[in-house]
């Protein structure tokens, strides 16, 4: 039996040799130069949470406006900005970045690596995301927020119908964000492919990591159509191009194809890693391994593939040929099969295990109920006649809130409760957690369930008010009350987080008895994560004596401690066989400089100053030049010189 004390002793033996190479600057300087995946991951989560609060408050204003018929809380113009920004922010600046934060923090820990494959790219991605989010959310303060709906249909969003800077903010903000997201996705894939701990062959990769990898592959293929669409729209609006202009040979439907070719995969880009969180939590609290692990992996991959063949179900009402409607209807029905496999895997794991309901698991159980309800209405939309009746009604709004709030926000909160101790070294309160769950669960259903009814009664989405004689006021009032309950529940979580950060109890290394490698590190982990790189012997390294023992046994093995500088271990792509150490870059201000080289021109273009944009864009090649300037040969020569200069054995 390997005791925690033995591992601690082994860790301490190597720590003093590792610490100097991995130390980063503190204070303001460290703020701008860090490349540590844990700090960057935390930043992603905090920044995304900030955008969640902003977009949530926007929704509260909308719900207040809709509480009764013919209310006058906000103007129609402001309401347009609110619903556009709410959707855009929640989809692009909260969900994906929040899950990128989890991925950034957890993926290297779960695969037993010391950092991501490209730490500086990681830092760069964060800065670009933060700049894009600042542009998007900040525009509301100047009354210049996007105002044409989060999927920006043309011709409405062409310049002559929607003048002003709002939709330019949308196009450029999303293009900027696209660069960050793509870089992050590539980083995740390469990390999972090349940096796994020895012995972690593909059939021992935790499901959360699989989910992030599939998500990343989807991003690699799905973001280009969105970026092309936004580039086209921006050129149409600002420079008089005619991509979507039917009077000059363009086509508005082209926008819809390009947007939804990204847009439907994006639903799974958001949901898959959230399902990965669920797959990480369920085994821990069922006290047994996940049922049908290979099937769940295959289901995750299959979902990713099929989701590229269903985008037209967002366009059933645009008058496309019957045959293509049938094809996409069938594809949309089939995509439910892999999702079903995942749901049944969790249910069977719970059934066959010994369920322990703590706060994270409570959120997962709530997720199961809500997500399945959203899935059922999703199947209804795959049926063409039903879709044509309810499209653009509140039924759609109800459906995607069940899927996205239920399928992403519930697991994210479950994940926060599950890993908070690892992230911060403090535990959240079990009692406040349970209270917040029940208040949110109630508030959520009271807010969003009546939207199904209102949709069937014919209430269209995106209206800033309605006439009293339509009889919608009662349900709307119920929804608004639900929204305030939801606000109270979510505020409880925020209070719990602030309270725990100030005086929460210290977190043990493995508070829940989890199975994956992040629980082998201290809470919070050291800069280098693992003093001794673990050797993995099963899918459940923390439940398996041989894997645990490797971390104590190998403390004298230089090939597992890698104390010769800031190093990580490159292992083979498929089998996780150790190949050689790779040097990781030290902290650097370059990611920030290059990100500024992208962000400054974007802001300048929005403000209509192309000259400033051109000049500030020069930062980009300059920064990239310094970034990629080859240094290895010179460093090697210098190291060889200093070895020759020192007398033999002097440094022993």
């Amino acid at each position: 039996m390997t005791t925690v004390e033995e591992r601690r002793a082994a860790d301490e033996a190597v720590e003093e040799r590792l610490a100097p190479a991995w130390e980063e600057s503190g204070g303001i300087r460290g703020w701008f130069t860090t490349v540590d995946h844990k700090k960057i991951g935390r930043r992603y989560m905090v920044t995304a949470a900030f955008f969640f609060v902003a977009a949530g408050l926007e929704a509260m204003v909308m719900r207040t406006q809709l509480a009764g018929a013919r209310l006058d809380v906000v103007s129609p113009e402001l309401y347009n900005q609110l619903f556009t920004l709410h959707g855009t922010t929640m989809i692009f600046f909260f969900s994906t970045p929040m899950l990128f934060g989890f991925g950034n923090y957890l993926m290297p820990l779960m695969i037993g690596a010391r950092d991501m494959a490209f730490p500086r790219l990681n830092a760069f991605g964060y800065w670009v995301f933060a700049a894009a989010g600042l542009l998007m959310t900040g525009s509301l303060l100047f009354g210049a927020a996007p105002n044409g709906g989060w999927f920006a249909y043309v011709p409405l969003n062409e310049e002559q119908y929607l003048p002003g800077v709002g939709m330019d903010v949308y196009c450029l903000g999303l293009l900027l964000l696209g660069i960050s997201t793509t870089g992050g996705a590539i980083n995740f894939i390469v990390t999972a492919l090349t940096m796994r701990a020895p012995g972690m062959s593909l059939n021992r990769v935790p499901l959360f990591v699989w989910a992030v990898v599939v998500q990343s592959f989807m991003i690699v293929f799905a973001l280009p159509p969105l970026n092309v669409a936004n580039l086209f729209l921006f050129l149409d609006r600002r420079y008089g191009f005619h991509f979507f202009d039917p009077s000059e040979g363009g086509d508005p439907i082209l926008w819809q194809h390009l947007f939804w070719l990204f847009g439907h995969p994006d639903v799974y880009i958001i949901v898959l890693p959230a399902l990965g969180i669920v797959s990480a939590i369920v085994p821990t609290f069922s006290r047994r391994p996940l049922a049908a692990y290979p099937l769940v992996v295959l289901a995750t991959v299959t979902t990713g593939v099929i989701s590229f063949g269903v985008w037209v179900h967002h366009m059933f009402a645009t008058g496309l040929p019957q045959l293509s409607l049938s094809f996409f209807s069938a594809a949309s029905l089939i995509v439910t099969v892999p999702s079903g496999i995942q749901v049944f895997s969790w249910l069977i794991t719970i059934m066959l295990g010994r369920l322990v309901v703590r706060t994270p698991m409570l959120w997962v159980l709530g997720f199961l109920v809500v997500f399945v309800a959203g899935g059922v209405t999703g199947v209804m939309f795959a049926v063409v006649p039903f879709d044509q009746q309810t499209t653009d009604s509140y039924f759609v709004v109800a459906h995607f809130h069940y899927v996205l709030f239920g399928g992403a926000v519930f697991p994210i909160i479950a994940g926060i409760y599950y890993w908070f101790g690892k992230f911060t070294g403090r535990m959240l309160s079990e009692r406040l957690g349970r209270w917040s769950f029940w208040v949110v669960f109630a508030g959520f259903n009271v807010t969003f369930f009546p939207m199904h009814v209102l949709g069937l009664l014919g209430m269209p989405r995106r209206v800033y008010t309605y006439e009293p004689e339509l009889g919608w006021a009662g349900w709307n009032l119920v929804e608004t009350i639900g929204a305030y309950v939801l606000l109270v529940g979510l505020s409880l979580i925020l209070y719990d987080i602030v309270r725990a950060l100030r005086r929460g109890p210290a977190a043990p290394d493995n508070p829940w008895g989890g199975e994956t490698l992040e629980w082998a590190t201290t809470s919070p982990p050291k800069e280098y994560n693992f003093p001794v790189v673990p050797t993995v012997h099963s899918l459940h390294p923390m439940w398996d004596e041989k894997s645990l023992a490797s971390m104590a046994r190998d403390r004298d093995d230089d090939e597992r401690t890698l104390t010769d500088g800031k190093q990580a271990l490159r292992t083979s792509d498929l089998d996780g066989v150790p190949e050689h150490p790779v040097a990781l870059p030290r902290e650097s201000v370059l990611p920030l400089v290059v990100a500024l080289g992208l962000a400054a021109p974007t802001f300048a273009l929005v403000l209509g100053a192309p000259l400033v944009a051109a000049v500030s864009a020069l930062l980009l090649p300059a920064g990239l030049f310094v970034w990629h300037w080859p240094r290895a040969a010179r460093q090697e020569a210098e190291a060889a010189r200093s070895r020759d200069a020192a007398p033999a054995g002097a440094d022993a």
Partner: protein
Amino acid sequence: MTALPAAATDPAAAAREVPAGRRPGWWGMVLALVTDVAAFAALLAAYFYIRFVTAGDNWPPGDIAEPKLLKAWIMTALLLASSAPLVFADHGIKNGRRGRMLAGVGVTVLLGVAFLVVQGLEYREKLTVEFTPQTNAYGSLFFAITGFHGLHVIVGVLALLVILVAGLAGRITHRHHAIVRITGLYWHTVGAVWVFIFGSLYLAAQL
């Protein structure tokens, strides 16, 4: 002799039956190119959508003539030819022949610049005589697609210039030359993408 056979015959490598030593940077470039090619695919898909679904029989639309081919053939020849010296440079530096690398990269840069010059001439002719991006959707697509590709060639030329400078400064050796291989991957892909653009925008437009 070269690094590759040693890596393949090494007992440890033979035992795990996988090619050893793909660098993270190599994989990173492969994935960046995958997403980049997907962007070109989206652009070309938009082009064919407008041509076949929206426009109908008259293509190019209005009184725009079919694109002339002479300059485009020259551009194609220049860009395809430019890949060979880069392969030569890559093999050269792997064997420690710095001169070969510098010569190969230098020739590639010249051919890339020549491509850009011919593209500039073609743009001047089109913009002054035939059509602009603001003329109609065809013009918008033509300049967006070829312009996006031209930007890729400019980035490639800049990256190759960095290699040239670094090579002259002795920063690229037979042990550290991943930058040549990875930039080559980018350059060859940009060349291959041009073949599709040439086929779609120039050749297929004659039909």
